[in-house]
């Protein structure tokens, strides 16, 4: 007979319940704006408190940004990096998803290739990049390939977990109703893998960008990684942050204009959690 929150709330008296049909206090846009403002404030305060050359305040970074933006240099390097990131992302997601789904659905294949996967997961980026440059020359193809090879095992692992949890009931339904392979993939398999795909692509694009920085550091003559390394040698943290934030801004734009609407659309069928 221990008192219990829910019981208390309903026991006491005839409780009046209003029909509250989802009216959030702030609009989504406002929340995002608030969030960014909070982040900026936090950074500014930290910069003032730390008062160190290593954590410049927002104005210093803005200045560094304008310096390189005015010459168009920043946009050039950003574009080069984005080109590499996008190419490697498409490659890695496509190849990794296929391998991951196959391994997740086929125990025998998985047992055989699992050690290979672990090997490729754990080869340092440096090794892959250097080997790629040495074998295929210091060119874009080698750079993009090296980034993709670094990312593919991660995609495989995530998609494999997803494929392992595929609903057998729906698969059976599809086979009884003779769905073609394409129809099964599109309407039965992929929707179930959506959360895994989302996880793989979100963490993927950030990992790819980080590897792109190393690739550019080791053997490219442009791109954000090239610039960041240059400024690191000069220990110009403001400039490093300016380039970093420029990339983050691009990612945020993609997130809000592309990813979130797409996700909202592809998960609209999901019953919403009460009160959210």
């Amino acid at each position, binding site marked *: 007979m221990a008192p219990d929150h829910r019981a208390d709330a309903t026991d006491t008296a005839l409780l009046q319940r209003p029909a509250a049909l989802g009216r959030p206090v702030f609009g989504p846009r406002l929340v995002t704006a608030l969030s960014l403002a909070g982040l900026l404030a936090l950074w500014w305060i930290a910069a003032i408190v730390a008062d160190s*050359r*290593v954590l410049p305040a927002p104005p210093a970074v803005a200045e560094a940004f304008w310096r390189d933006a005015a010459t168009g240099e920043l946009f050039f390097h950003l574009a080069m990096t984005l080109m590499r990131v996008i190419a490697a992302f498409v490659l890695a997601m496509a190849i990794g998803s296929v391998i991951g789904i196959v391994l997740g659905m086929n125990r025998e294949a998985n047992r055989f290739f699992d050690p290979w996967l672990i090997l490729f997961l754990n080869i340092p980026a440096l090794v892959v990049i*250097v080997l790629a*440059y*040495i074998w295929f*020359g*210091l060119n874009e193809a080698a750079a993009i390939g090296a980034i993709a090879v670094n990312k593919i095992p991660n995609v495989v692992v995530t998609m494999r977990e997803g494929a392992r949890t595929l609903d057998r009931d729906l698969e059976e339904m599809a086979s009884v109703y003779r769905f073609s392979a394409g129809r099964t993939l599109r309407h039965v398999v992929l929707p179930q893998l959506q959360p895994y795909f989302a996880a793989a692509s979100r963490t993927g694009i950030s990992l790819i960008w980080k590897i792109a920085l190393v690739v550019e*550091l*080791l*053997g*490219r*003559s442009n791109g954000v990684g*090239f610039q960041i*390394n*240059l400024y*690191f*040698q*000069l*220990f110009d943290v403001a400039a490093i942050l300016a380039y970093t934030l420029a990339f983050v801004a691009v990612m945020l734009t993609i997130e809000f204009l592309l990813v979130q609407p797409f996700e909202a659309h592809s998960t609209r069928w999901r019953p919403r959690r009460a009160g959210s």
Partner: protein
Amino acid sequence: AEDRATIRVGILKFGTVNWELDAMKRAGLDTAAGVDVELVPFAGEDATAVALQAGSVDMIVSDWLWVSRLRATGADYTFVPYSTSVGSLMVPGDSDVRGLGDLKDRSIGVAGGPLDKNWLLIQALARKDAGIDLAAENDIVYGAPPLLAEKARQGELDAVLNFWHYAARLEAAGFRTLVSGTDAAMQLGTSGPVAAIGWVFGDDFAERNPKAIEGFLAADKATKELLATSDAAWEELRPLMKAEDEATFTTLRQRYREGIPSRSPADEAKDTETLYELLAKIGGERLVGPATTLSPGTYFDDGKNGS
């Protein structure tokens, strides 16, 4: 030993500084000069810079340009010359490139990036002597030094500007020096080889530990004398140097000896200022930061000026 001062030096594990300090400790030259030198090895150049700023080491090896630039933004690092060895632009032994003027439509690897001092000087020299813009008329590849060295060996690059011990190794492998950073500087107006890299430490450390700095610099001088004259001392360094073969070993030794600064600090400082103005002109604010002249105090003043 209790009253001896200690100094922590951040070094590159496979770098030349490591060789020198190893020889110093082997010969007991540091304790003889009243200082305990503690070696803190790192795997990368950037790591030593981070370590100095994080206060985890008292001294590292870096260049005066870096010191001057940081001083201009408020840091108090200072500089004592360590070596005049700098990078060189190398071409394969059988290359038909004879001078900077022949570098046109070639692929050139540049270690250290577009703001590397030697690269700037060599570009300026090419513009002055041969009237060509190296960066514009060639295919420039910036990249990691070991990777570029390997690419040069593979023949993918027609020329490579690399740091001195990579250059020395390439030389031992049959490459020849087209022009070195020192040559370029001298042809552009310095009166002698300028020590580009040196011991870097904080002014406040020097103030608090004058005996440590004094002892260390004395021990450094003694070690250089030893290494300049004794081949036996080099034999002991063999395992550290990881030279592939005898030719590489002797080239490395030879180039090291050539790099020992021999000029008076005053001459050094004067040439450095010339060089700085030159670099400020070529590299612009991007390279040197807001200051257009060498920041005062970049060269360490131990109070016994000119000794």
